[in-house]
């Protein structure tokens, strides 16, 4: 806001910048306690600030850029000062896309640009090539990205979310990148992938390894965490051989919160349910009724699960979802071939949390916990992001598709939708598994017992 002047002196006689610097020193010394700023004599306002800074930088492959080990995922940035704050605390790679907020994310970075030294940062943006755009269209769209970013050039332009091998060497994109590089508006071509989606069937590692070997890309963005370690590591290995810069996304785990209905003081999760239900036209009373019924129905399972999982959580000293998420990031940080990790950090507090992890190492206990968690996760859950087992089924049962429908049923509460989808598979469903001697056993590199999971899914999706 225009009225505020960051160099203006506080009542205590210091400038804001000086004050923040001292606040930072205090906060580092005081560990988790927020620094306190005395503002108006009658009141202490907790100061945002005083967080640690980035303490480790790695070379981003052949770009030679020294990138902070943690960078900024800008998918939901709503405030440009958060970008500036990240920069001031040592983050120097900002990962955005033309589609994030329909350009709003790029705009927020652009608003912070005047506070950042351009040659000290690495701006990644991405463009969609799934609708077969021509070279000129891609160039025009890229120019709009530059306008929003308020920069004469971007450090990298990625082909966004590729899940189709045919698009890896999409000529209009490669030609557009060459043209933009020749014009001094782009430094590097890149590519990102999350794995198969919709009608695009190809696994993340297949896509990115082909991209790495093509020689067209200097940088890439991949999903890598302890739950899909092997797939990610296959990509990282090739990137290392080819000296390609790597940025990591989606490394965190799922939720770890027990839902308990307290109407007066609902937890964040229950509050989210209230908002969702009320947003769909339910009254507060109806929402309470629905949540109560849901918890009653699931209660026995919750109780049993909690009783059984409690010793495990206690053994590893896991106290919160945050802690689990932070350990997940640390797990990635220990791998030097993953040059930077870009978690979504749309708030000052989120930044403070991840900044504290820069340069840290996962403890032996933490690594053991995640390894056990990963094994359990892999053994029980098909991630339906790969197609490794596809060739093992003599009946051509679409394993990952059926697993996805089971996920719709269980996790999304879309029973009818999932069952309808499953019914559309016709005879190509998991019923054949009942009479099969299961050559698929052992086909999953992650240890998922496909036949058992398919039995289960078939029962779920047909009510058999």
């Amino acid at each position: 806001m225009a009225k505020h002047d960051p160099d203006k002196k506080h009542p205590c006689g210091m400038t804001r910048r000086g004050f923040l610097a001292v606040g930072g020193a205090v906060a580092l010394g005081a560990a988790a306690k927020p620094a306190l700023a005395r503002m108006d004599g009658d009141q202490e306002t907790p100061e945002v600030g005083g967080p640690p800074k980035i303490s480790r930088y790695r070379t981003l492959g052949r770009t030679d850029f020294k990138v902070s080990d943690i960078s900024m995922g800008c998918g939901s940035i709503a405030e440009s000062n958060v970008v500036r704050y990240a920069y001031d605390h040592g983050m120097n790679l900002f990962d955005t896309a033309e589609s994030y907020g329909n350009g709003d994310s790029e705009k927020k970075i652009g608003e912070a640009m005047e506070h950042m030294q351009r040659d000290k940062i690495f701006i990644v943006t991405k463009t969609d090539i799934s609708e077969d755009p021509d070279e000129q269209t891609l160039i025009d769209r890229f120019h709009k990205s530059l306008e929003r970013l308020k920069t004469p050039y971007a450090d990298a332009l990625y082909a966004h979310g590729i899940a189709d091998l045919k698009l890896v060497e999409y000529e209009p994109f490669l030609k557009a990148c060459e043209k933009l590089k020749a014009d001094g508006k782009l430094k590097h071509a890149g590519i990102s992938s999350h794995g198969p989606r919709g009608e695009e069937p190809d696994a993340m590692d297949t896509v990115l390894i082909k991209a790495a070997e093509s020689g067209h890309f200097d940088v890439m963005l991949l999903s890598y965490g302890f739950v899909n370690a092997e797939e990610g590591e296959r990509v990282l290995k090739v990137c290392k051989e080819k000296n390609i810069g790597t940025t990591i996304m989606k490394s965190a785990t799922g939720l770890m919160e027990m839902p308990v209905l307290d109407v007066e003081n609902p937890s964040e999760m229950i509050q989210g349910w209230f908002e969702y239900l009320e947003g769909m036209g339910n009254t507060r009373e109806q929402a309470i009724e629905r949540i109560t019924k849901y918890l009653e129905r699931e209660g026995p399972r919750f109780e049993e699960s909690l009783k059984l999982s409690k010793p495990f959580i206690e053994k590893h000293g896991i106290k919160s979802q945050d802690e689990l998420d932070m350990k997940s990031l640390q797990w990635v940080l220990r791998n030097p071939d993953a040059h930077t990790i870009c978690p979504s950090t749309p708030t000052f507090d989120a930044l403070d949390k991840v900044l504290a992890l820069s340069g840290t190492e996962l403890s032996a206990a933490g690594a053991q916990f995640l390894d056990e968690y990963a094994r359990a996760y892999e053994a029980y859950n098909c991630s339906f992001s790969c197609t490794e087992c596809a060739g093992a089924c003599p009946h051509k049962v679409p394993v990952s598709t059926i697993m996805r429908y089971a996920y719709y049923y269980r996790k999304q509460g879309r029973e009818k939708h999932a069952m309808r989808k499953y019914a559309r598979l016709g005879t190509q469903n998991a019923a054949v598994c009942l009479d099969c001697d299961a050559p698929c056993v052992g086909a999953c590199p992650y240890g998922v017992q496909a036949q058992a999971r398919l039995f289960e899914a078939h029962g779920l999706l047909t009510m058999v």
Partner: protein
Amino acid sequence: MKRVILFSMLVLLTAAAIPAVAQPPEVNVPVPTGWTAVDQEHRYDRDNLWEYINGAAEMFLTYRFRELIVADFEQGDGAITVSVYDMGRPLDAFGVFETEKPATAEVLEGVGSAAVLQAPYQGLLLKDRFYVKIEAGGGDVSAEALQGALQDVAAGLPGEGGLPPQLAALPEDGRVPGTVAYAGSNFLGFEDLSACLYADYKVTGGDEYRLFVMKPRASFLRNESGKWAQSEQEGRIRFTRTVPYSGVVVLMGDKERLIGVSGFDEIQSATELLTSLLQ
């Protein structure tokens, strides 16, 4: 140990699910006049939105996004993709529309609740709880054709025109035109400022500030994050916090509604402004 972990997984999976609810009637993408549908509609919800729009899903999920319905159409050499985002309620659709609306887009009067055109690539539409994006996907699609498609889709979607009534909660005096917006979460970069309706103000004498209204979550009122200074001011609750680079943010009100301001250097002057507004 493995058994324990597996049960733990069940907790994680089940706890993440939102309880099943009665769904409103299914909405389909209206077919724009003169266009022919290609293939069937595709639907995405909160859990698989990323499959369609990658990381762009994050922003939608900070609102009450419920479902995305996508359909492709063709007309001669031209092709368009119509994406209808069911945002759950009009205020959330408004929030996304205002976020995604390019500053340079041409405003179309009389189309839905609001609409803009960014030729040659896209048109955006707001109607009731729906936010719609129409994108030219190939061939030559004129601005007129995009505008016509926007009009037809607006007419074909259920619900009322007009802007959400909640916008009236913001005072008009001193409000900078075109700055009213709605943030689903992370307002001002704070994770506990969610569902905030806001606008920028400039009053005679030069003061500039941002005013916002929110219904506080219970966790915020309890100050669970411990990051806010809480006090009572003339019988009202007051929360204050410093914003990096932007002075202070101050909120005042009661458990049902808080009104807040950012952009002031000092808590006292912000408090005076809020006190006068609340009176």
